[in-house]
């Protein structure tokens, strides 16, 4: 126990005195959280390259449902999903999938909307001709859209507007058809009818009068429905989760550097002549770096809680399941330390470790949805992003902090992080043994 504790304290001392390393670990993610939260709070990015996976539930199965589906299919960037595993989509199932972030939106065309809309059109025209209107007309039927709470405002607005335009165009067609029919019917009732020259007797008939406001009365509408979650996520929540994971993974730089320095300076050789298992020394080292990751996470949380509200940003909330949060942050830290050990063992020089470590973390962060949401990436990149340990960490933290998830709902991500740690440790150990046998320690 004493060697473990001594190693733990020694590593903390070394890290504390590595000012540039501390700057990278603490200052960089803190600045990113503040700046990006402020930027995202005020600016909606209009990204035309976005691709939304939209669940489509057509309960109408008539003209309106069919036309909405056909027209949505024609919108670039919208991927319409009408069945899951060959089965029709159930609304509850769809809402669960949306709340979990598996799909970005779900559109529900209610049953009977075509009949209702046609009836309303005819009714509106009849009322317009008669000059009477219902005292309290029933609300128009509506096409409901459910959004993943994490979908950015720009995407919500663009999809909602597209659907509204579509419904308006359909309304015009239906109204025009209804009006044509109404006019035709009224003309059929005129004495003798026409064609041909207008009988002189018609000149005495009263003119056809219509309420000019009838066209403005809506037949149907589209509305964004509330999420199943109690609160919408804030930019602070998303950024704290994202940049914390990013910052934690930057531990690979000081850890990889420390391993290389120990090898280069001969300290590792000295350590290995000690009557202590190297596994104990390694455990002490890992414990220290995990502790630093935790301090880093708490620092960012503290900054977000205390420092951001005065800047006009929302107060940070991290969900309700503290044990799940603790386990998740620890697993992210373990995975990051595994990566650091692997880089420190494989790199030959400090420069190699620094360059490779930084590039690897930034690439994994970009792929993992730290910088832009995964759903706006091209399909190929979305597939690759599933393999980023930062994506696992981010998804788990977002699930707990934003979607109010639990350990059970992030078990897949936690297992992936644990597997990443195990694989990187095994690779580092194998490489370590190889270097050892070659006498290049």
């Amino acid at each position, binding site marked *: 126990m004493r060697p473990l504790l001594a190693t733990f304290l020694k590593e903390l001392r070394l890290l504390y*005195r590595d000012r540039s390393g501390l700057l990278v670990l603490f200052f960089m993610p803190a600045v990113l959280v503040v700046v990006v939260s402020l930027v995202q709070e005020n600016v909606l990015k209009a990204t035309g390259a976005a691709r939304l996976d939209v669940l489509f539930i057509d309960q109408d199965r008539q003209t309106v449902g069919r036309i909405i589906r056909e027209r949505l299919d024609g919108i670039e960037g919208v991927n319409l999903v009408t069945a899951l595993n060959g089965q029709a989509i159930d609304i509850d199932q769809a809402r669960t999938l949306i709340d979990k972030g598996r799909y970005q939106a779900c559109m529900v065309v209610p049953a009977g909307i075509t009949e209702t809309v046609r009836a309303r059109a005819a009714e509106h025209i009849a009322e317009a001709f008669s000059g009477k209107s219902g005292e309290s007309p029933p609300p128009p039927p509506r096409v409901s859209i459910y959004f993943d709470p994490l979908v950015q405002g720009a995407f919500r607005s663009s999809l909602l507007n597209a659907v509204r335009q579509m419904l308006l165009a359909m309304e015009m067609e239906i109204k025009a058809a209804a009006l044509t029919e109404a006019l035709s019917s009224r003309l059929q009732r005129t004495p003798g009818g026409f064609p041909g020259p207008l009988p002189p007797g018609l000149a005495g008939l009263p003119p056809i009068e219509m309420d000019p406001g009838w066209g403005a009365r809506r037949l149907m509408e589209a509305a964004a429905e509330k999420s199943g979650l109690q609160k919408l996520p804030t930019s602070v929540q998303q950024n704290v989760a994202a940049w914390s994971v990013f910052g934690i993974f930057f531990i690979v730089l000081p850890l990889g550097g420390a391993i290389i320095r120990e090898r280069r300076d*001969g300290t590792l*050789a000295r350590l*290995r002549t000690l*009557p202590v298992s190297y596994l104990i020394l390694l455990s002490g080292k890992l414990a220290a770096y995990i502790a630093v990751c935790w301090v880093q996470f708490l620092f960012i949380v503290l900054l977000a809680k205390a420092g951001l509200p005065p800047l006009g940003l929302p107060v940070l909330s991290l969900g309700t399941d503290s044990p799940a949060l603790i386990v998740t942050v620890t697993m992210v830290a373990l995975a990051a330390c595994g990566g650091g050990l692997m880089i420190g063992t494989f790199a030959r020089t400090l420069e190699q470790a620094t360059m490779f470590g930084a590039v690897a973390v930034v690439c994994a962060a970009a792929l993992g949805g730290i910088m832009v949401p995964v759903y706006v990436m091209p399909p190929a990149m979305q597939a690759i992003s599933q393999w980023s340990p930062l994506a696992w960490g981010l998804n788990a933290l977002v699930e707990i902090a934003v979607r109010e998830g639990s350990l059970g709902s992030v078990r897949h991500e936690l297992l992936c992080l644990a597997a990443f740690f195990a694989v990187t440790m095994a690779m580092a150990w194998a490489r370590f043994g190889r270097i*050892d*046998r070659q006498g290049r320690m």
Partner: protein
Amino acid sequence: MMHPEPPPPADLLSAEGLAKTYRPARTPALASFSLSIGPGEIVGLLGPNGAGKTTAISLLTGLLAPDSGRVAICGTDLFRHPGKARQWIGLVPQHIALYPSLTAAENLCYFGSMYRIAGRRLKERTEACLETVGLSSSAHVRIGAFSGGMQRRANLAVALMHQPRLLFLDEPTAGVDPQSRNLILDRLTELSRLGVGMLYTTHYIEEAERICARIAVIDEGRTIAHGSLQGLMDAHPGCGDLGQLFLQLTGKELRD
């Protein structure tokens, strides 16, 4: 905790038939290397660059596993019972194997803790070792701020923390000023009088002449001469000193 008292073997170090080849090379880095060191004995291991000195020390301290041969430290097999055998050895590596951002005292305390020395005993040993190498006044200065000579002395002090029976010194005076070198050699001589055995590698022939009772010369992984300084000189009457003898044995061709 102090180091456990070893049984009183005739030899602190007993190595027989050590061989090591770094794959994929076919030439052995060390072949049929045998050596023994008794209590208080300082054995010099000399050889040109690449002769196999560091490989020999790595094998004798358990840093490397040999292809064949055995090593016993105070009668304990190093490769079968490494934890036990390592308690009796101290290593002064060729590099300054210390943490530059820790102070001298912090470095000593850390490595002392690895031998489960704790509390007041740890503090006492730290102070004693720093005093031995003349660094008491710089105990709380970071190693990175030390001069080359001070770093070398601190490197030695760390190896003395647990009062080892056997010291392996891999060029411990490389690049230091005459004053530091003199102090280091004086302290090693004092330690040998206390019964500490040492294996000492160096390129400074005069150091070996000054402190070593026996000399082993290796080249291309093989021991080419071994004996007391006087015995070696007697066997090579044409050589005026150990330096000439060394060049006669290993040749004047550059090895780098």
